[in-house]
Each structure stands twice: as C-alpha cells, then as structure tokens.
C-alpha cells in the first residue's frame, strides 16, 4: 500500500516537471531552451512552496535541496556554469547538510504534531502574493536595456575578473569574504559549544 503511494508521488513529481516543458514545446511553439527554462522554473517554484508548507521539517529540507538543484540548472541556462557549480557545492553540499544536521539536533518528539504556521499566516500569504505581483509588474514595466540573448561567462573570464587588475577590482572583496567566513566559523563554534561542566550553552 505504501509503495503505491510512493509511486503515485513519483508520478506526480514527474508530471510537475514534464508538463510545463511539453506545454511550451507543443502548444506555444517554443524552443528546447524555453522548455528547459519552463520545466526548471516550475520545479523550483513547486519545491519552494513545498519547503514553506510541508509539515515534516525533514521533508522541507529535502525539498529545499530540489529547489537549489533547479536553481543550478537555471544558472546553467543563463550561461554561468561556475555559479551553477558553486551552487551545487556550497548550497547542496554544505548548507543543506548543515541545515539537515541542525534539524536532527533540534526537533523534539511532539514538535512535528503541532501547528506548523503562526497565527499571522493568512496576512503573510496575502503580503507575499502582493510582493510577487509587484515584482512581476515592475519587471515587465521597466526597460532594462537587456540584450535579446544571454551572454555566457566562461570560467577563465570569471577568474580574470576576480583576480585581474582591470577597473572593477574584486580582489579586495574576495579577501574580505574569506575573512568574513573565518569569523563566521569561529562565531558558530563559540555559539554552539557547551560550557565545560555546566551543560549550558552560551545563550
């Protein structure tokens, strides 16, 4: 019985991914790139909604990994393969694992059976929909001076941009980010460690 439920869920997930692609390809006459973007965008948004709405928080974390993976695919279609690789390594490899470990460290037995949303969930949903509509209206109402096709950023050009000596110099911010990461690591260890003997943390 349970296996059939899982099969049904897998079929629904496959339909979510393939339906927009087929719609764009056949009904709207788009190219293969259009179908890919529609499919990845739908997967990203559906898994994002799953992250904020599912009851079991472990499943929320796994849906977040799916969302990050779809975003990496979108970066590839935007011609930024280095950003896509960093997305997979940093978000899926590091941050998701960190969040899953934190979930396992902080859940009590009764937590999953209680209420998921705060009392202000309905106004928050209205506000979020208004934000999305406003962003879409602003995006379509503004002339961004955009080219009609994407420009690829090759990885060696990216390295020259970061470490090179041309006018927008990023080397200082690159080093500042490394210092920030070191500070974050030290701060994280300090916040999460136990005091010796007392059994209490620092907060």
């Amino acid at each position, binding site marked *: 019985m349970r296996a059939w439920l899982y099969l049904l869920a897998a079929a629904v997930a496959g339909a979510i991914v393939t339906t927009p692609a087929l719609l764009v390809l056949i009904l*709207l006459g*788009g*190219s293969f790139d*259009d179908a*890919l*973007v529609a499919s990845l965008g739908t997967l990203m*948004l559906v898994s*994002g909604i799953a*992250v*904020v709405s599912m009851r079991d*928080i472990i499943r929320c*974390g796994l849906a977040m990994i799916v*969302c990050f993976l779809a*975003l990496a695919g979108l*970066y590839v*279609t*935007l011609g*930024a393969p*280095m*950003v896509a690789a*960093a*997305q997979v390594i940093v978000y899926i490899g590091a*941050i998701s694992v*960190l*969040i899953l470990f*934190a979930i396992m*460290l*902080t*859940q*009590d037995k009764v*937590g999953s059976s209680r209420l998921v*949303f705060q009392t*202000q969930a309905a106004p928050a949903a209205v506000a*979020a*929909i208004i934000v*999305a509509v406003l*962003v879409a209206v602003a*995006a*379509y109402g503004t002339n961004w001076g955009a080219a009609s096709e*994407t*420009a690829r*950023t090759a990885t060696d*050009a990216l390295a020259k941009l*970061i470490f090179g000596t041309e006018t*927008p110099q*990023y080397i200082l911010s690159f080093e500042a*980010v490394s210092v*920030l*990461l070191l*500070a*974050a*690591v030290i701060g*994280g*260890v*300090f*916040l999460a460690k136990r005091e010796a003997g007392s059994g*209490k*943390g*620092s*907060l």
Partner: protein
Amino acid sequence: MGLADQLNTYLTMSGALFAIGAFGFLARRNAISMLMSIELMLNAVNLTIVAFGAFVPPLQGDGAVIALMVMAVAAAEATVGLAIVIAIFRNRKTPLVDEYDAMRR
C-alpha cells in the same frame, strides 16, 4: 515566444521565489524553517543578479562574481544562524519561535 531569451522570465520567477521565502519567514513557527526561508530569499536574489549579469551587457561577468560573493555571505549567515538556533534550543528545549519569550517578560 522566446521564454529563455527574456530577462522578464527570470525576474518574475525570482520574484515569486522571493515571495515564497518571505511567506515562509513570516508564517512558519519553527526557527529552522525560518532559516530555510531566508535561504530561499537569498537564492532568489542570486538568480536576479545572475540574470542581470547574463542579459544586460554592461554588467556581463560582474553578475557571476557578485553571485559568488552572495553565496559565501549566505554560507556565513547559515552557519551563525544555525549555531544560534542550536544554542537557544539547548536552553529552551523547543524549536518554535513563538515560545522564545525571554525578552518579553
């Protein structure tokens, strides 16, 4: 058609993802769910930056660099945020933010 050749497609998608993250941050009770929603919002902004870098010619290349910086800062934020949540959980024994009322009493 040209769905993949328009900046507006990507901007609309990232706006929708940002709205989803904002809803999750405002509506969820679990502190780690709120942190996950913050990650969604940061990713939406990252998608916007990469899309601008890909489509607007004066920003070409810079978008990818700024997106990498944002990713590193997001990693730092996740580290400190999760450490704070774990430290609070150790004392309060609950991950639900509406039961963190030590500063209201």
